[in-house]
């Protein structure tokens, strides 16, 4: 039952549509400096960009370029040294810890590289957990959770524990969890790291389709450039800086066909 986006051409359409949509996430001159034994490191160095609703963006760059640090800042898990992050126009820096926790469960959807799921909850419960956290789990929510999992090809796996599922299946459950509560921003850290190539393409493709359909702002960190064929924009980082933005379809496809780096 997974949605098949047969050709990247549909993403072009999505991109065109999203131009007019409101900005969901805005990053302004963000700097994150870590003080280390060998002196200060700017893990993120004056980065600015914004993502609109319905837009799927890839964050790429070599290891150590600051991708995870950037994602942590977007998720309100890390406070930037300077600069601003706005989600739905709200400045994260002005929030206290309670408000940040609340923001994470209401406005952000998350998938992690691994250890995504709560091991003692089955697939359905893991997805429903996001609604429970928001105190919003009702009958309709249960049905939507099951439907979303079915949509991701897990209709037969609703009651499986994470340990009874493959890496790809777990990653898809995590995607459902990241979307079920209608967050503003969906953040995915290396969602394909533990998957084989074929699975990886499938997962990212479905992910992209869901982000486009539901008007979420999606940001995916990946080191696998081939995955970029499903996104609307690619942000390339190096040494904490945003060094290049691939925006046209042609540029993105050329990058994606260059393969893994």
């Amino acid at each position, binding site marked *: 039952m997974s949605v098949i986006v047969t050709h990247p051409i549909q993403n072009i359409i999505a991109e065109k549509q999203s131009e007019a949509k409101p900005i969901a996430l805005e990053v302004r001159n963000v700097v994150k400096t870590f003080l280390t034994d060998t002196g200060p490191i700017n893990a993120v160095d004056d980065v600015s960009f914004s993502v609109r609703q319905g837009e799927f963006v890839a964050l790429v760059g070599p290891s150590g370029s600051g991708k995870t640090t950037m994602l942590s800042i977007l998720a309100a898990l890390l406070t930037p040294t300077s600069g601003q992050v706005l989600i739905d126009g709200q400045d994260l820096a002005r929030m206290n810890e309670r408000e940040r926790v609340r923001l994470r469960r209401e406005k952000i959807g998350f998938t*992690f590289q691994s250890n995504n799921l709560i091991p003692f909850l089955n697939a359905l419960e893991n997805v429903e957990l996001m609604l429970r956290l928001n105190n919003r789990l009702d009958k309709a929510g249960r049905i939507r959770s099951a439907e979303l999992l079915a949509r991701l090809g897990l209709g037969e796996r609703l009651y499986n524990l994470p340990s009874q599922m493959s890496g790809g299946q777990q990653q898809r459950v995590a995607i459902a969890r990241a979307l079920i509560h209608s967050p503003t921003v969906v953040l995915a850290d290396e969602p394909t790291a533990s998957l084989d190539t074929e699975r990886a393409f499938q997962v990212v493709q479905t992910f992209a389709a869901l982000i486009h359909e539901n008007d979420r702002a999606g940001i995916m960190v990946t080191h696998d450039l081939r995955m970029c064929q499903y996104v609307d924009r690619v942000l390339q980082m190096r040494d904490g800086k945003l060094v290049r933005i691939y925006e046209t379809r042609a540029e993105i496809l050329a990058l994606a066909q260059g393969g893994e780096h």
Partner: protein
Amino acid sequence: MSLAFYLAFKEIWRNKGRFLLVSLVIALITLLVLFIAALGEGLGTNNREYISKLDGQLVVFLEKSDYIISASRLRQSTLRAVRRVEGVEDAGPISTSSTAILLPPGSKNEVLKVSLLGVEAGRPGFPQLTAGRTFLSATAREVIVDQRVLDRTDIQIGDTITVRSTQGVEDEFYDLKVVGTTSGQAYFFQPSIFVTPSVWEKIRPKSDAELGNTVAAINIIVVRLKDSTQIEQMKEKLLSSVKNIEVADIQTTINNIPGYSAQQGTVQTQGGFTLLIGILVIGGFFQIQVLQKVPQIGVLKAIGASNPVVGAAAVIQISLVTAFGVAIGGLLTYLFSLGFPPTVPLFFNGAASALALVALLLIGPLGGLVSVIYAVRIEPLKALRLS
């Protein structure tokens, strides 16, 4: 908080084996602690029971006897003097000794060791009868026996028992007719038998030196007050009115039974150490578990679970596992206790057992405290950085 309950319960439910194992360890610790408490209660009861039931508020000892019953020797004149003190309703002498009842041939043991207590009929110190009657006269060769004697022998009211008593270097035998029974009157780890003071003086075991001595020896005098709220005042009054005495309340008398405090202390220390082991076992288990759960807790926090929810889930989980373990342990203890003969000094109905149960329920939260604090302090960033 329903979310915390949900998380705590689901995790236990999906890892039944692991949590059951901890509960079983707690159950065994519970069993051990309850048995130690019951033993303490049993030994304590067997030691103090008669004294604790005395029908009075104060006990008079010989001066400088340090409230040790066997070290105190009082005269008949002291008893009369105590009775004359204003505010004293009644006073009764108690003489203590140890002797043995001969058992019929073919019994498992040759003799049953008992505490031989000399008391005046109807006076403080005289036990409450459960059946039969009191002594006919001050010199009647009659005896009132504790239910425990009946439990351990075939003796009945109307029977004649033979008491073996060492007089100097010879064993002498005295026949006594059982005329009444009482219950729960153990003293100094032995069931008691009661005789009149003059019979007591006649048949009590004596050393060679004592044989010629005709002065009836009273160990202590139990004093029943007209106003039982005036204990401290009456103590002072007795001390100032009667010469060569010291006075204690019942609890002090019990605490000074030779070995009583030391024994209770030993048993309590054992119980305390077992509880400590429980705390360490639970603490160790949950600490190891929380270390393994760092990524999972990181994810929970990253997706928006608050620290109170994570902390509450941990506390609820530990409490559930502990309560379940204590329940199993309590049940096991109960089942075991059904199998014990009445002669085993285990008392499960005392305040000691209740206290032990409360302490057991607390060892979980106490032991798990470190792991709960650890869980609350895990940074949500771990979800990203560990992956």
